[in-house]
């Protein structure tokens, strides 16, 4: 059995006319990879997921299960989660709402929307968001290594690469900036010593979105901004080939 987690890109949003649960599950890349490999698939992705949620649900799953391989497609580092039932039309998990900088316009409460815009504008920084994602990636890496489970980690878009590139290009020589660069380099060195992790350092652009663009695959007809069915078929084959070529599954 192969375990997948991620955001809407892994859930399959855009692969079906009305993004039905059944349709997305049928056409998303994890299902396609599972079919090509002849393996059962557990897909715990959810649309709009923050990396906090992806990390949290992956840890919970791996604490009780030992799949043959784990594939994580990380989302945008700036997303966050808070307990706000009814914040949007749809809530996930224990009423823990997933908030992205792009969906703040959909927040019903004016004052909360203002506060979240202020949070993104002044409190949360790219530095914090990028470091959080690197911490989550290392946490899952260590968990899989301790349990002897092969792990592939990549990004839905090359956003993490961009944040890290910007942060490492900081010319400031304050003590805080040096500490930040030191911390980022710690994680880059950490992942450099490991295989099958992508999109964590400057110039490492591999992601679902870059693969889609490089291979001239169209976005969804139903949900603009998400990969279409052809892109999911490509990604499913990519994961299937990757796992086989690197002997990550039997």
């Amino acid at each position, binding site marked *: 059995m192969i375990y997948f987690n991620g955001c809407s890109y892994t859930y399959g949003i855009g692969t079906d006319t009305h993004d039905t649960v059944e349709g997305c599950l049928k056409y998303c890349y994890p299902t396609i990879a599972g079919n090509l490999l002849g393996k059962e698939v557990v897909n715990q992705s959810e649309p709009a997921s923050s990396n906090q949620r992806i990390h*949290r649900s992956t*840890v*919970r799953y791996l*604490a009780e299960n030992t799949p043959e391989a784990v594939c994580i497609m990380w989302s945008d580092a700036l997303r966050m*989660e*808070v*307990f*706000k*039932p*009814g914040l949007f039309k749809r809530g996930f*998990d*224990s*009423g*823990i709402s997933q908030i992205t900088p792009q969906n703040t316009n959909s927040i019903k409460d004016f*004052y*909360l929307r*203002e*506060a*979240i815009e*202020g*949070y993104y*504008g*002044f*409190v*949360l*920084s790219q*530095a*914090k968001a990028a*470091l959080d994602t690197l*911490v989550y990636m*290392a*946490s899952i890496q*260590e*968990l899989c290594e*301790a*349990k002897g489970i092969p792990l592939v980690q990549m990004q839905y878009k090359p956003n993490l690469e961009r944040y890290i590139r910007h942060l490492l290009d*900081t010319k*400031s020589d*304050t*003590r*805080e*900036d040096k*500490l*930040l660069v030191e*911390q980022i380099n710690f994680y880059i060195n950490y992942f450099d010593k490991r295989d099958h992790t992508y999109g964590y350092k400057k110039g490492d652009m591999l992601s679902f979105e870059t693969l889609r663009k490089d291979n001239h695959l169209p976005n969804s007809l139903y949900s603009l901004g998400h990969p279409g069915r052809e892109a999911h078929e490509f990604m499913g084959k990519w994961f299937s080939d990757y796992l086989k070529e690197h002997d990550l599954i039997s």
Partner: protein
Amino acid sequence: MILLVNGCSFSYGDELPDVNKRYSTYLGKYLNLDVKNIAWPGSSNERIWRTTKAALYEITDISKVFVMWSDLARVENVHLEANMATYHVSPNYVKETNNPLYDENGKFILNDPFFQFSPARLDTMPWKVLKSEYEDYYSKIYNTETGISKTFFYMYDILMTCKILNIDYYQAFFHEGNRYAIDKTFNQFNMNVKGSRLQRVKDYYNKYLQLFKGNQRIGFDGSSFTFNEFVTENKLDRMPHGHPGPKAHKAYAKYLFDNFMR
């Protein structure tokens, strides 16, 4: 073998004349273990989780872990714009207290880029705009349900990591305020008003709570003391800013050893 200890100022031994006279040192002697104390004053539970996880994977000879969780509402962030080097206290204060958290000019010394913050420190923040945004964060975005959900996930993650690595795990609350916050969040009035929405969080919280044994619930339910309660109940010494004093640290280590870690 090593006893790994993490927490906030209570575990760091803030204000103690000699930081080596903190409870972790005595606990190490009782248990006959070397001690690695990675606590830091003002810590959020996010920092405690992050650094405990890193230590668990970096240090190979840990046999026991003791985590004293901090206030649910604390957060950590990275603020490059608001340069933390400008965050300082009077050099006289440093001279008087010999506080190792500040250099001789009163500048706050960070050991990583993360800045630990809590609602209690809102008034000390020197940057007006950032202060205003943090006020909005605590009044409109953050809620105790989020703090409980996050902290109990951190606890669960460390429990599971210790289990996989075959390490004994112990945990406590530093202050009974956490217990009050949890009780208040799930009291009958709130359950009636918020109904199924709150029930989902309570179920989530209970799912994690039932995994913790007695020595992983120290100060959680009133049958045992938080460090702060222990000092109050036994009328032990406190430092000028309220942190436990040298005698309190020594007695608390014995309390932990006799009741939970022997």
